[in-house]
């Protein structure tokens, strides 16, 4: 498998990267999706700009009640970074389930979200976290929500020449319980269905709940009717089942040789119930 010929540059400053992007180059982050696509000639960029030397895109910083993650931060770094493990364990738990050890060593959060594979893991967590994404191009910088960012399969609001600069997630309030549950497609490591849940309790009732879903349809989403059904209940087994039954409501589910649309919807409900149950057990 030999990709088409291309020109390659690996500048060490974001400014140089943005200039090359403006001139038509395609950005290369960890390469865990782009390189396989180039090998299959599904992608054939004439010019690649490699972001691996841009140190100003690789960081995890806590600021107030938010955690800022640079686009070139690897899945392994997200999986193991102490601040994330303590204050945004949902994202760390999700990162630990991506692909495999070698993929997590090179793959990056910015590259993964920009690629927007409908079966990728991060989008479920980013929807549940109501994450924000900072996008930058040669002319301007803008911030969008995860809900706005993911448009369709492999399609985001990124414009030509624009890249994800950072992902902003909340530092969880004390007592928040979270869980990412995934049905893995064993050959690829991708999620046939993935469910990310955040729950808070107050005076014996569920006072806050967010449910993010990936793998089920062309893009990730928040299961808002499931959230509304669970909120205000005591979170008993029947409440969890009622809410989980709604996660695929109104969704045009994907169908492939691994799982039909109906089976995918069934998996989503079963795993939503498991994820909600675990998240509640982790909430205090």
């Amino acid at each position: 498998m030999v990709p088409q010929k291309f020109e390659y540059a690996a500048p060490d400053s974001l400014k140089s990267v943005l200039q090359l992007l403006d001139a038509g180059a395609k950005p290369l982050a960890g390469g865990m999706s782009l390189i396989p696509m180039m090998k299959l000639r599904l992608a054939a960029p004439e010019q690649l700009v490699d972001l691996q030397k841009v140190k100003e895109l690789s960081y995890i910083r806590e600021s107030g009640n938010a955690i800022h993650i640079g686009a070139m931060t690897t899945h392994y770094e997200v999986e193991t970074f102490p601040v994330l493990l303590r204050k945004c364990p949902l994202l760390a738990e999700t990162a630990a389930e991506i692909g495999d050890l070698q993929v997590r060593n090179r793959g990056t959060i910015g590259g993964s979200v920009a690629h927007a594979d409908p079966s990728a893991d991060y989008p479920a967590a980013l929807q549940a976290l109501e994450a924000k994404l900072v996008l930058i191009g040669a002319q301007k910088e803008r911030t969008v929500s995860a809900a706005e960012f993911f448009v369709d399969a492999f399609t985001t609001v990124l414009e030509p020449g624009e890249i994800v600069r950072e992902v902003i997630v909340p530092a969880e309030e004390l007592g928040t319980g979270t869980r990412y549950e995934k049905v893995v497609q064993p050959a690829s490591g991708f999620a046939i269905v993935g469910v990310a849940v955040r729950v808070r309790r107050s005076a014996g009732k569920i006072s806050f709940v967010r449910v993010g879903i990936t793998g089920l349809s062309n893009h990730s989403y928040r299961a808002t009717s499931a959230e509304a059904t669970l909120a205000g209940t005591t979170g008993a087994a029947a409440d969890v089942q009622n809410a989980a039954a709604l996660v695929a409501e109104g969704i045009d589910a994907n169908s492939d040789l691994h799982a039909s649309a109906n089976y995918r919807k069934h998996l989503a409900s079963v795993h939503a119930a498991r994820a909600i149950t675990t998240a509640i057990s982790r909430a205090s």
Partner: protein
Amino acid sequence: MKITCTINGKTYSNDVETRLLLIHYLREVAQLTGSHVGCETSLCGACTVEVNGKAVKSCTMFAVQADGAKITTIEGLASNGTLHPLQEAFWNEHGLQCGFCTPGMIMASKQILERYPNPTEDEIRHGLAGNVCRCTGYQHIVNALKAAAAGARK
């Protein structure tokens, strides 16, 4: 494009096509054929090598991305005829049958033991999820990692 990297302690400088994959650079240019090409689609892990201390699938990286990098391949593990403890453990525990996946298995195992010096079975199996063995030898491979970890603790 001219690249310079260090492989198993030796410096290599070559002019390569930008589209040359690292695995082909290692095997065909540096003539280090220990790392294998299995699936060439980043699923099987037979091409796993260490780049700047991280286990990576060298079929999913361009050689030009390794410019300036420090690379270790399976050939770099034994020193002066003494096998690396993981190589010893794979041998003793019968962690291979045909041996095709073994170079990648050992390079991934090295990373697992660096991160989990005393790994649980779950940590071993989760860590090896990106390496495929078609002789169905996983149990012996898991045993080999446990033996290597126990040996290191002695």
